[in-house]
């Protein structure tokens, strides 16, 4: 194959061997015949010396770029970074590694991006392992691949994923570290930080042909995080062309990323398990506390109602205190349980359309007696007179009751509490303002902290669990809302929350339901495309949203047609969904175009925040909205059935 480049103003044609590494000839003359430098460059002796000097100074630097045509019909771009060596007599000899094939480099660059996306988007260890077995063997052109992982103690190795590897070989690769599982670890573990027990692997060398006569070359990459060897990837080739050095280098580069991704996945899994354990511990605890509490409550109630005979005033008083405290315990228990359920992600909203004004009035009514007792002047103001919202009515009741209950608790006799509720097109704001004792700045900062009571400084005699506000916050956020507190000591406290009337997910579900009905009648398919930008950043500006609309229009337009009317935009959170008809014959091209256009955006946005895009085809990939959503999120590597919450960690 041939290529040409310009060097110090001259055009030079180079002939390379099939691998593109060795230079066979320059400007039509074969090197093996001992071509003179002058003949090649057509320079005088002094010019030659000058050029030689420049070249030596430039050695290691990029000198030129040339395009060569390969026998397979593709063109390669080759960067000449280091000039061929030239002997004193002006003889040029080809030198290994003097030419860098950028096409291959670029291919690798792309592959590395792909790997980074494939493994970076997932926290599922098994999926990452399967993915790397496929990706690494494809990238290196290796015929077999095994991902071998050590267990948590770092002693036993298991083949977790393999391609074209027989049972016997798998057995050889698995086992106890001291019995030489590392015999296959041809790579010398140089990291001095590695725990001493892995040093045993240093002396062991691979026996490539043992049991596998057809293997011509192999390479093992260790997966190291800090001082731990998590496992290794073992690749081998049957073809005579060995695994090249560049592939080995690149494998070593990505091994560190893979190891860290696997480490993160393991840590995440452990953490999930812990949360699950905590949750089930709390639920067991709460269950075993409920029965004795019920027994106490029943007994106290019996006595208080005089079922055991008449009571003296003192008896009545203290039994009353007992009863109240049992109720308090129950409240703490319920809050704890709810919090752990939210943490574990098992709290589900049962949304229906309700009138928030009616709800607020009914809650206020239930506090009537309590407020009357304290002589609290309660007022409620709403605008407009009816505010419909799509919420979980029981949980919404819990939220308002929690805030109002607190306000009553901390407000002295004969003071005022005001509840304001106002609704706009999209959201509802509720404020509950009291003239209570107020909160100091330090109490305010940890008001929403879980498992921390901020009772210091609060007037004696006022009982709180320290959990109520933390729970209220979680419940508001579960509705896609936000909550905040303004407070001044001895002046009062204002707790406000805002929730969207109709959350993005519900609008999406509703639109999708209608589109599915229509598609069914027409006998068509649908594509649901979802783009979530900047998962962890601040809420977007309207300019940003309109830019996002434009960009999506230009990217999806070519395959989906004009999508202006089919976009569902969540202006608060920078989420956009597009529902469009998808005919069976153009589905492949839709997928291709989406992939092409969005991969780049994603790689870019991943760096700053966390974005995702995905799509799903109806009815092939799901017949109901939850199924479709699940498939859509799975395609993006998100393992859950709900849209990821915004601006939050988990």
């Amino acid at each position: 194959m041939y290529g040409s480049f310009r060097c110090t103003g001259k055009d030079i044609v180079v002939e390379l061997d099939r691998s593109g590494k060795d230079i066979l000839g320059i400007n039509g003359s074969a090197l093996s015949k001992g071509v003179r430098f002058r003949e090649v460059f057509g320079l005088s002796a002094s010019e030659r010396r000058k050029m030689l000097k420049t070249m030596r100074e430039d050695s290691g630097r990029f000198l030129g770029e040339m395009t060569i045509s390969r026998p397979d019909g593709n063109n390669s771009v080759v960067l000449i970074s280091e000039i061929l060596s030239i002997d004193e007599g002006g003889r040029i000899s080809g030198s290994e590694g003097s030419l860098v094939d950028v096409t291959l480099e670029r291919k690798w660059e792309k592959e590395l991006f792909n790997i980074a996306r494939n493994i970076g988007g997932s926290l599922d260890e098994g999926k990452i392992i399967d993915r790397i077995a496929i990706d690494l063997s494809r990238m290196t052109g290796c015929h077999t691949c095994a991902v071998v992982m050590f267990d948590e103690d770092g002693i036993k190795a298991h083949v977790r994923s393999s391609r074209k590897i027989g049972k016997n070989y798998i057995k050889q690769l698995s086992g106890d570290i001291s019995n030489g599982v590392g015999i296959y670890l041809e790579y010398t573990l140089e990291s001095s930080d590695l725990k001493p027990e892995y040093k045993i692997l240093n002396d062991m060398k691979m026996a490539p042909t043992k049991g596998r006569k057809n293997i011509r070359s192999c390479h093992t990459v260790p997966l190291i995080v800090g001082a731990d060897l998590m496992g290794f990837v073992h690749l081998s080739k049957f073809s005579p062309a060995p695994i090249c050095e560049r592939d080995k280098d690149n494998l070593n580069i990505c091994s560190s990323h893979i190891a860290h991704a696997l480490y993160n996945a393991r840590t995440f899994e452990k953490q999930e398990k812990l949360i699950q354990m905590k949750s089930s511990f709390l639920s067991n605890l709460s269950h075993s506390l409920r029965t004795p509490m019920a027994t106490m409550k029943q007994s106290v109630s019996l006595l208080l109602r005089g079922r055991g005979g008449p009571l003296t005033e003192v008896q009545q008083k203290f039994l009353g205190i007992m009863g109240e405290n049992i109720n308090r315990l129950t409240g703490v228990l319920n809050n704890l349980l709810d919090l752990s359920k939210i943490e574990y992600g098992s709290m589900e909203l049962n949304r229906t359309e309700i009138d928030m004004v009616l709800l607020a009035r009914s809650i206020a009514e239930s506090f009537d007696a309590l407020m009357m007792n304290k002589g609290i002047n309660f007022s409620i103001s709403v605008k407009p007179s009816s505010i419909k919202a799509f919420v979980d009515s029981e949980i919404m009741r819990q939220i308002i009751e929690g805030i109002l209950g607190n306000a009553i608790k901390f407000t002295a006799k004969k003071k005022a509490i005001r509840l304001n509720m106002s609704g706009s097109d999209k959201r509802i704001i509720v404020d509950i303002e009291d003239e209570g004792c107020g909160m100091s700045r330090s109490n305010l900062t940890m008001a929403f902290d879980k498992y921390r009571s901020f009772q210091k400084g609060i007037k004696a005699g006022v009982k709180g669990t320290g959990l109520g506000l933390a729970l209220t916050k979680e419940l508001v956020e579960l509705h896609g809302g936000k909550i905040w507190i303004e407070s001044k000591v001895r002046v009062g406290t204002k707790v406000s929350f805002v929730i969207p009337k109709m959350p993005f997910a519900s609008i999406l579900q509703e639109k999708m339901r209608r589109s599915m009905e229509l598609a069914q009648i027409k006998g068509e398919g649908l594509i649901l495309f979802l783009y979530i930008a900047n998962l962890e950043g601040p809420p977007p500006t309207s300019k940003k949203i309109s830019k996002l609309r434009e960009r999506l229009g230009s990217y999806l337009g070519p395959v989906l047609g004009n999508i202006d009317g089919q976009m569902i935009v969540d202006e608060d959170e920078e989420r956009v969904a597009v529902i469009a008809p998808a005919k069976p014959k153009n589905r492949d091209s839709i997928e291709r175009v989406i992939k092409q256009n969005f991969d780049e955006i994603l790689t870019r946005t991943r760096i700053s925040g966390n974005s995702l895009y995905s799509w799903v085809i109806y009815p092939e990939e799901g017949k109901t909205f939850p199924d479709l959503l699940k498939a859509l999120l799975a395609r993006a590597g998100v393992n859950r059935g709900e849209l990821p919450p915004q601006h939050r960690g988990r």
Partner: protein
Amino acid sequence: MEKSKQNGKRLLVVDDEPDLREAIMFDLQLSGYEVLSAKDGMEGLKMAREKDPDLLILDLLLPRMDGYRVCRMLKVDKTTESIPIIMLTAKATREDERLGMESGADMYMTKPFDPEILLENVESLLKKGERKRKN
């Protein structure tokens, strides 16, 4: 305690916790009901079939047979299907309640409960049952 039959209603309390069982029975008896009790699911099912109670107060986590099962078995049987069942349980999640109602319970109350509300619920379910029978 003397078993009075002023209003002629017979109730069955199935709970494995003896103290709670006793306290509930005491309260119900003083309200004028005849109260029977059982300490596990099997015994509860047997008594519900034999003694023909007017209402059942049923715990869920019971030895030998759980409350869901007892409830389902009573509700599929023509002779016992009309007995109102109040589930009185420490299982407090929405999912538990859904399962309870699906197994055929008429009412679901979580522990710790308000004893006065239990009495009210017993009364209202008995009245409802009476109306059904009259119709």
